[in-house]
């Protein structure tokens, strides 16, 4: 399917001339054809079947592990007395964090008028929702008696008891619940016009009915578009502080306590940056195979990958900044417990996890300073895989090192995961990828209506800055910059008349 697509480097542009975001010279019709192709193909590519089979198997493992847990209790995990949270909460924070990149792309980049977001926002949002689903599993099974998980919600009961609203764990219920709801709304609202496209292109009767129901009778009326755009802008404006709040609230789970290594004021923004960092790594992990597999190379172009790598570099550097400040403050505070915990992280029993985290989260993304690493898909995949691993270990290091060695040395204990822990983590990936692969096949993976607005031919006004064909970008490369060829900047210091 993808063999005909030619790769064009559009990562460079001459200042003042924006490189094309969609390559391949598409018009509205051909763009719709390309975007609908994964859905219209009689059957998905072979790789899809293999991946789906693997994901289903892992999903079955997750089901089995949850069943085993319910029948036997949380004792089947490796939790011990000081370490009451380990894989469960690590996985929860990891998955919630993954979701953040989707909202960043769909909401924050929208507010910043970053048009390149249109190519990737739909499946990044889908990734958000599936990641939140995976995240939601873990607090649910972590409560032990999962049939009573509804006690988390503020429901009146016969004991006249209510949840404790001063607990950050309850804030989590509200934050993650709101986040899941608003992400779903955002995703679905944005999808309505594309579902209408599917409805109008569907050949079989049942597809017409199903997609017709989902499209709500959308006709592309300009009066509708007007309110639609306003609603979309408002949702973006609401989702922006929301996404910041979600991981901030998650960080409060740790930071409001007095445990050394958990209680530090930079936690909220640091968690948010880390979440976006890990999320972008996952977006790249998904985008690179998806564009290969479904022939979307003209829509998700090297420029998109390049931009995402740059954001990964930025957020990775912010995470490194937070690590640095935490270490500095652990010493600066003069608090012996703080400095102990940080020494224990770097040199103690979990040093292996700590240095894995540093290597993957701080060192690996620095490779993105080099353009070679941002343009070759295998190198990108290598780095983002490191980041995926590193961000999981970051949560593990935060949670387990602080818990396993707290104030009372007599109760220290080393946490070892059991096979149930490991298989549950693996199974959560099965859930995630099963949902994602189904989405790729059955829902509009590209936000067609939005991508169309990026095409130069769709702007009714004459554009003051011409869109140049991407190939011209090669005319210009700062690495080959020759100062002699242009006028000397120093000449300009003379006073203007």
């Amino acid at each position: 399917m993808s063999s005909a697509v030619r790769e064009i480097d559009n990562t460079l542009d001459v200042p003042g001339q924006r490189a094309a975001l969609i390559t391949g010279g598409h018009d509205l019709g051909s763009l719709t054809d390309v975007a609908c192709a994964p859905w219209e193909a009689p059957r998905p590519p072979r790789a899809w079947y293999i991946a789906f089979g693997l994901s289903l198997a892992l999903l079955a493992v997750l089901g089995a592990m949850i069943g085993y847990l319910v029948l036997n209790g949380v004792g089947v995990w490796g939790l011990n007395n000081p370490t009451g949270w380990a894989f469960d909460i690590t996985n929860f924070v990891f998955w919630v964090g993954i979701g953040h990149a989707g909202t960043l792309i769909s909401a924050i980049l929208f507010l910043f008028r970053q048009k390149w977001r249109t190519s990737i926002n739909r499946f990044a949002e889908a990734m958000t929702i599936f990641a939140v689903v995976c995240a939601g599993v873990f607090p649910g099974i972590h409560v032990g008696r999962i049939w009573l998980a509804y006690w988390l919600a503020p429901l009146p009961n016969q004991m006249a008891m209510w949840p404790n609203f001063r607990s950050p764990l309850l804030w989590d219920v509200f934050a993650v619940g709101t986040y899941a709801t608003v992400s779903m709304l955002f995703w679905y609202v944005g999808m309505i016009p594309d579902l209408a496209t599917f409805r109008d292109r569907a050949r079989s009767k049942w597809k017409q009915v199903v997609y017709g129901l989902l499209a709500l009778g959308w006709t592309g009326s300009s009066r509708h578009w007007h309110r639609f755009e306003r609603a979309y802008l408002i949702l973006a404006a609401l989702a922006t502080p929301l996404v910041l709040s979600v991981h901030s609230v998650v960080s409060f789970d740790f930071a409001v306590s007095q445990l050394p290594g958990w209680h530090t004021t930079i936690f909220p923004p640091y968690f948010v940056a880390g979440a976006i960092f890990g999320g972008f790594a996952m977006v790249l992990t998904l985008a690179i195979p998806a564009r290969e597999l479904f022939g979307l190379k003209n829509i998700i172009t090297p420029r998109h990958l390049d931009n995402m790598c740059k954001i990964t570099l930025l957020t990775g550097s912010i995470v490194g900044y937070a690590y640095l400040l935490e270490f500095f403050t652990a010493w600066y505070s003069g608090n012996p417990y703080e400095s102990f915990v940080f020494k224990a992280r770097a040199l103690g029993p979990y040093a292996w996890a700590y240095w894995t985290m540093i290597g993957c989260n701080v060192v690996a993304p620095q490779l993105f300073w080099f353009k070679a690493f941002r343009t070759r898909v295998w190198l990108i995949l290598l780095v983002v895989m490191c980041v995926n691993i590193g961000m999981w270990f970051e949560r593990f290091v935060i949670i387990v090192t602080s818990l396993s060695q707290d104030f009372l040395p007599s109760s220290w204990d080393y946490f070892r995961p059991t096979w149930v822990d490991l298989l549950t983590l693996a199974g959560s990936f099965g859930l995630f990828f099963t949902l994602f692969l189904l989405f790729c096949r059955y829902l509009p993976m590209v936000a067609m209506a939005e991508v169309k607005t990026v095409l130069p031919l769709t702007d009714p006004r004459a554009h003051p800055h011409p869109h140049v064909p991407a190939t011209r970008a090669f005319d210009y490369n700062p690495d080959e910059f020759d100062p002699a060829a242009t006028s000397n900047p120093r000449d300009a210091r003379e006073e203007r008349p």
Partner: protein
Amino acid sequence: MNHAPDMSKDVRPIATGRAAFCAAVVGALGLAAGVLFGLRDGWDVFFRSYLLNYTYVLSLALGALFFVMLQHLVRAGWSVSLRRLAELVAGTLPLLAVLFLPLLVPLLAGMPGVWEWASAEAVAHDASGLLRHKQPYLNVPFFIVRCVVCFAVWVGLARYFVRRSVAQDATGDVQLTVRMQWWSAPGMLLYGLTVTFFAIDALMSLNPHWYSTIFGVYFFSGSLVGFFALLALLVYFVQRAGRLTHAVTVEHYHDVGKLAFGFVVFWAYIAFSQYLLIWYANLPEETVWYQPRQGDAWWTGVSLLLLLGHFVAPFAALLSRWPKRRKGTLACAGAWLLFMHWLDLYYLVIPRAHGHGHEPAAPLHLTDVALLAGLAGVCVAAILRAMARQALLPERDPRLNEALSFENI
């Protein structure tokens, strides 16, 4: 989109000779008055007040430097017509480096100045032993080294970006844009680290027993609020003076308003994160910082005024679309936020932990007003002087066309 005939007037430097002279006179009088009040109230009060007002003007220039680098980093088109104004503000950084020197005088003379840790006596008598613990970091020579590094970075970055931009006015060389884009990324890295450690050194160490990992971000967020407020005011007055009337459209006001609004919310988020975590854990070594700030009626009032004036009121005022698109309204909001940013720094700098034996007689001195007028006057004079000498628009920036034609949704 042919704006050529109007643009020529837009970019012409403003004859600001008289205004610059007046600002300089105000500045000189303010500084002199500050010294006189200092003689009356004591050097302790003088230096605290100097630090407060100095960090105020410095934070605005640092915000401007951030803005300039950010626009290059993200290859922004919309902001080109505003960038020169930010460059003018960032251009005061060399002057500000000189104005920092008075704060070093007491340290070099062996007096404690405003920083308790600089006094050998205080370190020796510190019952907690924390000052001794922190001496490898908090000592005068290392402090001066760090300050030299910070100012070298800022002055270097400011000169680099301002000079390249001005040079482009003459040559129209796109390579300059590319160069600035390239340097903006490492520049940001250096900027983040220097601003953080400067905030820790100059402001957080005023209470050397206290610590907060978010402090650098707090200072940064407030600086950006101050800068966007200043930018709104600056562009308003420049347009009143008949410049940039075509290059800067209502869409730019809208965007500056959005950015100011965004950073107001960001500031509140950072301030709340710090407050909630310290309030919740309730550890004495951390609450010690809030104790003088909520201990008496005056400082409780200042805290509440910050909450209302630095967050609630501007949030409500800038939430809607129309105030951001009305030039006068936005300029008023800018003036208010500039005052609030000063109050924020006042809240950071002036209160001290109780029981150290040097309670100031009054929380607000005439010195504060005099030195604010002095330092702000000097900087405004420098900006006005620079305005008279160079174009107010990077008129040959390759992305200027985008800035002239964009529209908000």
